[in-house]
């Protein structure tokens, strides 16, 4: 156990924890917007798969990672649009329509993967970029300022999302629509438009989250490669109390436990690896339990809006 806590090991765990947090951050911040406007999008996992596939395919065919990223965002936008039509316009039960979106995304990404790629191939993804000056700081530079672009993007997204939600007119409208859509409607806010916007934004970010797997973290595409990460992202929104900074805390906690668990396996410490892999999920349940009563949940979450009701 002692060798687990040497300095290089700890630095390694923090470094990979930050890297692993990337997909969760994109997906969960996007989901925060959707839920703050009152829409529970449970289809994040399926959207991530479509983003991961599209990003990988486009990047491989064009040789341009940024085009891949754009492709992933577009795929995410389309999936978000589908979810908006179903859950906002057609007012479908949100928990169940999310399952449908997941099956759709899982099936379609697998289908396209089998038809266009056939087998698992890897790609040279986004490479770490050392930030000038900051990257030279001993230890800290290595941990915080030597990552790929998508990692920086994910962490910059948190304050940005916080600012947009709390300090802009758009953010105010999103929160109003999520708390009391009837009142917002009376004041002239277009509830449907706001919800379409947030769910589509969530879709775009979930698509990028998928690409951060296939273009930066793992650098390949595989059938069902997210294996439920999208659901963890939804759980992180609850855990983070629907606030971007809270989501950041949850994502980091989850990823550090995950990184620790990976390290335990590498070091061959006597815990069966399958049991170690369970830890983050058990932790998530515990975290949900602890945050369960702290009800800051948007009042209109999962409730479709119909003008003239109440």
């Amino acid at each position: 156990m002692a060798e687990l806590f040497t300095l290089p090991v700890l630095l390694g765990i923090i470094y990979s924890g930050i890297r692993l947090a990337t997909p969760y951050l994109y997906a969960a911040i996007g989901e925060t917007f959707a839920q703050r406007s009152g829409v529970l999008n449970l289809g994040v996992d399926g959207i991530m798969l479509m983003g991961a596939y599209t990003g990988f395919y486009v990047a491989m065919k064009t040789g341009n990672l940024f085009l891949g990223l754009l492709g992933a965002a577009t795929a995410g936008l389309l999936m978000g649009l589908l979810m908006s039509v179903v859950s906002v316009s057609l007012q479908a039960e949100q928990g169940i329509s999310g399952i449908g979106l997941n099956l759709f995304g899982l099936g379609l990404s697998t289908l396209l993967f089998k038809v266009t790629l056939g087998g698992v191939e890897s790609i040279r993804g986004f490479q770490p970029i050392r930030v000038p000056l900051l990257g030279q700081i001993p230890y800290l530079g290595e941990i915080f300022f030597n990552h790929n672009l998508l990692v920086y993007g994910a962490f910059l997204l948190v304050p940005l999302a916080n600012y947009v939600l709390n300090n802009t007119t758009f953010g105010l409208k999103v929160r109003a629509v999520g708390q009391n859509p009837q009142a917002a409607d009376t004041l002239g806010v277009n509830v449907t438009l706001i919800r379409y916007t947030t769910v589509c934004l969530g879709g775009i970010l979930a698509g990028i989250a998928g690409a951060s797997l296939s273009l930066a973290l793992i650098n390949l595409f595989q059938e069902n490669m997210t294996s439920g990460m999208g659901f963890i992202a939804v759980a992180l929104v609850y855990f983070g109390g629907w606030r971007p900074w809270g989501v950041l805390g949850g994502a980091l906690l989850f990823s550090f436990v995950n990184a620790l668990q990976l390290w335990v396996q590498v070091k061959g410490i006597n815990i069966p690896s399958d049991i170690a892999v369970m830890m983050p999920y058990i932790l998530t349940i515990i975290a949900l339990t602890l945050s369960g009563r702290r009800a800051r949940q948007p009042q209109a979450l999962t409730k479709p809006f119909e003008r003239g009701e109440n």
Partner: protein
Amino acid sequence: MPAKTEYTRLLNRTIEALLPLLAVPVALLIGAGMIYALGVNPFQAYGTLFQGAFGNVSGFTQSLVKATPLLLVGLGVTIAFRGGVINIGGEGQLIVGALAATAFSIGFSDLPRIILLPLTLLIAALSGAVWGGVPGVLKARLGVNEILSTVMMNAIALQLSNYLLRGPMIDPAEIERGTQIAQSDLLPQAAWLSRLMPRTLLHGGAILAVIMAVLVYIFLWRTTIGYRIRAVGLNPDAARYAGIPVQFYQALSLILGGAFAGLAGGVEVSGVHHRMIEGLSGGYGFSGIVAALFGKLHPLGAIPASVLFGGLLVGADRMQRATQVPSALITVILGLVVLFVVSSEIWARRRARRRETRG
């Protein structure tokens, strides 16, 4: 003009009943577009699919074999949804049920068949109930969102299964041969469900599942507990006002949902594989949800729905072999069916609301 309103009402009601049923044809139509885009003749692909699923004895019995776990999981989903809780944990509950059935029957292999077989299936159901009960109790006591906790329980069950099948529960023969395939020892023959037809996999579990469907129907519509579960699902506030302990019945519907998924796992090992294998579930936890929804959340409606989707799963494999259209197409179709069914409910809700305002 009373005659006309009567007519429109009838028309509306017919549309309301038929609209969800359109989900499958429409999803298949979109699937046909995709098949066409792949450069394959959709008629040929679907021809192989339905021929493979329902066109001959071996295909049809195989469809019924696949329909069995779908129906059992679907019954659990039906109870949970009727109780107003969303159980996405079928996958994990099924795995845990299968593990427990395997461990129990191997551990007590000297019991006579008449005791061992029912006990094995009962243990499977109980373990599933425990796995569904954790999210149930967490929701009732601490308000933890059951959608998320059941998903986490899925992941935990999967890892538990990986661990047990590579370690404590691995078939000793696998270690001897050095092949190390992650599967358990064979169940004692006394714990096998009987085969119903020679040279097919069709087993007694299919009959058991249909009996269960009837029992669930009686339970939900003819008993007080079932009535309360439905009352809680329809309107929790009204149920609370009527003195029904809402949380208790929500937890109960998750526990019962888990029991049926667990039973599905027990039936799979006892009827089909005769041992616990990796990937036993193969997504039944999710496709069972589709069967339940398409069966309009009615236990008896789930029977034909399960046969249909069991058939699609079997036929998809044949289609993949014959026409190179990946069987993942069926997952796309399942997803679309769910989206269409939940979207079509707006029609019924709008109508109910109009009725309400009219008084």
